[in-house]
């Protein structure tokens, strides 16, 4: 079992109204040091395979086809061992 982390972000220059609104809100909450906020998506995929290369290739295909919108978004992929290591725990 492998786990893929996919980070989807807006391409540079594309307006990010969410990020801008969050930034303003954080500043109102007293976090004056926040200069910019960008909002993207973070996906975790559990994959029934042990082949990292194959996994990376197939997740790339998934990103191109569905997970990211190439017209306005970029993505990055990380492949890790599944179950045991989870980036967030």
């Amino acid at each position, binding site marked *: 079992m492998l786990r893929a982390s996919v980070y989807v972000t807006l*391409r540079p*220059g*594309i*307006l990010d*109204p969410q990020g801008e609104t969050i930034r303003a809100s954080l500043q109102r909450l007293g976090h004056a040091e926040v200069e910019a906020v960008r909002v993207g998506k973070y996906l975790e995929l559990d994959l029934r395979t042990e082949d990292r290369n194959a996994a990376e290739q197939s997740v790339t295909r998934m990103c191109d086809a569905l997970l990211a919108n190439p*017209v306005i978004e970029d993505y990055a992929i990380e492949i890790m061992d599944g179950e045991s290591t989870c980036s967030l725990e």
Partner: protein
Amino acid sequence: MSDGRPWEAVGLTQEEYRAICAELDREPNHLELGLYGLMWSEHCSYKSSRRHLDRLPTEGPQVLQGPGENAGVVDIGEDMAVAFRIESHNHPSAIEPVQGAATGIGGILRDIFAMGARPIALLDSLRFGDPADARVRYLFEGVVAGISAYGNCVGVPTVGGEIVFDDAYRDNPLVNVMCVGLVERARLVRGTAAGTGNVVLLVGAPTGRDGIHGASLLASREFDENPGDMRPAVQVGDPFREKLLIEACLEAVQSDDVIGVNDLGAAGLTSACSETAARAGSGMQIDVGRVPRREPGMNPYEVMLSESQERMLVIVRPEGVARVQSIFRRWDLAAVEIGKVTGDRCLRVFEEGREVAAVPVQSLTDGAPTYDRPWKSPEVETSRWEPGIAQGPDPGDALTEMIGHPAFASRRPVFEQYDHMVGINTVLAPGAADAAVMRVKGTDKGIACVADGDGYLCALDPRRGAERSVAESYRNLSSVGARPLAITNCLNFGNPEIEEIMGSFVEVIEGMRTACLALDTPVTGGNVSFYNETRGRQVHPTPVIGMIGLLDDVERHACSGFLRAGERLFILGRGGENLGASQYLRLVHGISAGPVPAVDYPLERSVGLACRRAIAEGIVRTAHDVSHGGLGVALAECALTSPCGLGAAVDLSGCDDPEVAFFAEDGSRILVAVSPEFAPRLREIAAESRCPLKEIGRVGGDHLEIALEGSRVLRSSVQELRNAWERGLE
């Protein structure tokens, strides 16, 4: 200029470039050429269409503002007026459906509140290829999601529209959006920059590199490029900021400090500055150095040409600047002084005090070239269908097939994604009737609105197709009880450099002209979208009509569903003799054959008049026009939209061919139901209105039963029809 053919970079011709040089008496610099490139683009200048558009009738006592402003305006009495307009966002939606459609909504809203009107309703007229195709699905779902996300967030209900599926739109979906707003007559604002010394404020979002050479150029050229290369043109909408902009602008125009308001749409600052100055016969000077930026390092060219969303230009008296700025500040919006109105009829652009462009305002706007492009009327499809073609399928099966076809299936999966109630004015919501009806709070009145087009008919016969589109809109409004007032229109065509395309454009305009004159519905504005073409495939010539009507007493309206068992069913009008150009021939028999039925205007008017009177007197509460799919589909729709699932039993005597009796679309007919005690009064109204009237049956039961000359040819349970109807779009 180092490049030997500088005009090409901005999409102009060599002759146009020469004209610019003659106008300036020198060569334009890079920025100036950019300004001309944008303003003289097809999208902004209407250079191929203007002389034809001039044929449209634009006057009437109800018209307060005709074409030429941000929106048309009609009088509805009691010192109130309605501003409305339709616009296309076809090309952006083909590249990025969610944002393309969303920014379309944003743009049409700004046209309405630029007039000082509060937007009270949105409509969307959408066209796609076959929904079974994965790419088409993606576009369809994305467009709907974009409209839903933007419209719902800004709090303007989406109350109507239409969705058409036809292979002609496979690569070029059409996304036309319409907005209706309400304004006190005295508070109408116009997009003018009058009064030397008045101050120009830029309000709303900071300016980024969005859509430079975007909407305008994109919509002014063929569409063969790889969408990947269009990325810089993709704009993302911010409905939250738009909501603040609506509230702040409507508050600001209440003060006498504001002289004029204009949105920044296609061609951004360039167009907003030159158009406001041109309307007032003034000049303007602005300093791009003062324009708030979203990205570092933008040059004057980029600032002037950016199509960043959610921005407005507000022209203010100098003594009112601080007051107006404080209104915007309270809505958390920047309102930055970027320049002033001048008397020299020049648009002068400065950067940090240095003049970087100076061009005569009129040369950008009215001075744009116009073309009388060669055109040739396309061949009109007149081949006749053969009566009794194939012993067609059983009419009951054919009806179920049609009702479940994406062309007719319930639109609920779409309009449920739209907030159609916010604002608490929606009296007739999507799916309830032939048109949406909004009440006008504080009065007894109601406003009805509809958006309707028929590219298929126009492909067969552009002139008659256009006439029928106007007539159908007129009939849709009459069916809810509203008196039609005026139209706006969106003309979606392929490449105007092709003679037949240009010819169909000319014919469509002639058809609209005829219909609008005959039905007293002047044109108050509109939009032209050319180059809806991909690799030589053109969309059908598709005029979309947006029509506004008025109900004096909004409580007296009709919806399309059967309401009470025992009511008697009548047809107001005449028709049903000819299957030419019908959806039945097309969907069930696969025959695209004419002729497109002509419109009988005296009949159309008397049908409308009779229907409106019967509704206004309160005797008719169910009315539905007979159009696509003929009487069979119309009856089924009355049953399917009945809140209590009522069916009807009908005898269509006088016609011996069931296919024609069920599915012909010609003529002008409205189905109405009245309780028996009012039938005599309905006869009187019809007679007084010179409207043919025919009784055909009764409302009741949970089946739809249709007989011809006494013998039953169809019996379908409403539930069975519903199953097909509700699944058709899945």
